[in-house]
Each structure stands twice: as C-alpha cells, then as structure tokens.
C-alpha cells in the first residue's frame, strides 16, 4: 500500500499543477519560449522624511536616493553627511553611537570597520507593489490586542 501511495501522490500533484497550468515562478505565466514584459522599475522614495521603525532594533530605512554613492574601501559617501563631524552642515542624523563599538564592546573614535558598509543594513525604499501580504504587527498593536482581550498589564 505504502509503495503505491507515494507515486499516487506525485501523480496527483503533477496533474493538479497541469490542471492549473501555472507553476509559480519568478517569470510569471509567460511561456518558456517567450520573453515576458519586464515590470517597470519602481521609483525610489526620495522624500527625505524619516520613516517609522517597525521595531526598536530595526535599522532605519534610507528616505532618499543613494544612486551612485560610493561605499568601498576607498571612500564612504554616506559619511560625508552622516559622520559625527558632518552633521552640522548636513543636518542629517548622526550614525548611531553603537556603530563606534568594536566587537569587544570598546568604543572607537569613529565608525568601526564592521559597521562600515552601510547598505548591509540600511536600504532605500521604492514605491513597488507589495507582492505578498505581510502580516507583521508591531509591539504596540500586540499590546493593544492583549489589553482588548482583558490581558494583564504586569
């Protein structure tokens, strides 16, 4: 019986896929021998308005374009505005003090090498259509929910 079950399941799911005639792939529904139309490249948000963080530890997102900004071993163009000494002129937020800490918890005089590549954590946003619904709720909503259910505050 078991020997039969597995092929049966496979056969069933394959035929289901064929019936749907749609396998979920990144290329969408275009036939293999045709090029699908490329989606329009969404605009990058360039509002310079700081965005809410969804949780306190979230690296803040970049509210502006960073096209062509050089971040490599030679230079870091983000620091041109976000360095401690630069913010009076730029009025940009200073890089967090946590970024001056090396892995032993020692504070250095400037950004620690392990925090040098800003775009590892911080990214600009685009006006892209959201492909998948996100069910994330932030902590305030969780607390509200608990309270509404008569949950304790302690």
């Amino acid at each position, binding site marked *: 019986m078991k020997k039969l079950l597995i092929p049966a399941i496979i056969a069933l799911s394959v035929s289901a896929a064929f019936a749907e005639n749609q396998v979920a792939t990144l290329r969408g529904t275009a036939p293999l021998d045709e090029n699908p139309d490329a989606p329009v490249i969404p605009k990058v948000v*360039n*509002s310079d308005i700081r965005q809410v963080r969804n949780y306190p530890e979230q690296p803040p997102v970049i509210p502006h374009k960073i096209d062509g900004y050089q971040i490599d*071993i*030679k230079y870091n*163009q983000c620091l041109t505005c976000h*360095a*401690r000494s630069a913010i009076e002129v730029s009025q940009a937020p200073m890089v967090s003090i946590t970024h001056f800490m090396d892995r032993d918890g020692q504070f250095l005089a400037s950004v620690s090498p392990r925090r040098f590549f800003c775009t590892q954590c911080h990214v600009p946003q685009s006006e892209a259509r959201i492909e998948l619904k996100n069910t994330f709720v932030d902590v305030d909503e969780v607390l509200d929910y608990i309270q509404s259910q008569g949950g304790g505050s302690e």
Partner: protein
Amino acid sequence: MRRMISRFWRVMSKPATHLSLGFLTIGGFVMGVIFWGGFNTALELTNTEEFCVSCHEMRDNVFVELQTTVHYSNASGVRATCPDCHVPHAWSSKIARKMAASKEVYGKIFGTISTREKFEAKRLELASHEWARFEANDSLECRNCHSSESMDITLQSKRASEAHERFLLTGEKTCISCHKGIAHELPDMSEAAWHGKGDPKLVQSYLSSVAD
C-alpha cells in the same frame, strides 16, 4: 656661419622690390588666418572626448567610471564630455590649461599612471588638483551647464534644496565643495573617510599626514 646670418639679415631687411605692398599685407593676413585657424583646429582636436579616451589611462579608468554616472546617461539625454568639465571655455584659460597638460604628455611617455595600481596611487593628487581648480574658479565648468540662478530649488529634493539654499545661494560654498566624485570614483581617502572628511582642507591634512 656668421656670413650666412648676415646675408640672411640683409635679405630680410631689404624692402621688397618686386612684390607690391598690397600683396604683402593681404598675403600676410591670409597666411596668418591659415596658421591661426590651423592652430585652433589642432587645439579643438585635442578638445574632444575621443582624444581624451584615446589613451588607455583615461579610457580604462575615469571613462568607464563616468559611464555609470548621470553625466553619461540620464533621462534627458544631455551629457557632459571630458572637456566640458576639464577644459575652460575662455581662450586664455584654455591655453593655460593646455600648457599645463604638456606635463601630462610627459607622464604618458614615462608611464606615470600606466596601470590601474599606479593610477590609484596617484589619484588623490590628481583629484586634489581638480578640486583646487574648481574651488578657485567657483566651479565655473559646472556652471557652464548648471546655473544656480536657473535652478528651481522648489523642484529639488528636500535635502538638495536645503543644502543649496543654505550654502550655494549664499555663496558660502561652491558646487565642488559638496559634489566631489560626481563623475568618477573618489580616490582612496580611507583614512579621511573614517571621519567623514570630505572637504579639501581635511584632505590636505590627510595628504600631509600620509606624506610623513
């Protein structure tokens, strides 16, 4: 030898007997135009991007970098070429820049920046010269295309309009003070970069600190 010179001088100083004054004046004028035109044509030939990138030093380093920037490809299709940013328009300044460029020919012959590594090693110095030139002429070459009078800062991003209002329109800073690396990769300023040092004074101090 001495005799030859004195004979030459005698011929040259003798008034022309067979040629009319009109011929000499007009002929001189025409030849002048030809030479002057030829000179300027030759000068213009060196004033094209094709000429600049005919050397691999420029083609393989700064030119490939330029190609990824807004000054090479953008929505409006207007672009800047090397001489737009690097050669003054006014004739006297142009000649001065061309004379300075003779040194670059020497550098070419002796291979001062013949490899990427040599180029990178020299880059801070080369870039500093350009920054100093732009600081001194109030970014004249940028302003040949971008006029701060015609700039509608209300159409710009918040950051851009605030920076321009506070520092550009007041004349406190010039384009290059803030827009370094607009067309090419920046030189190795790792040391300076740690402290976010963008301005020439600080780069200068960085330069002298590495010189020690």
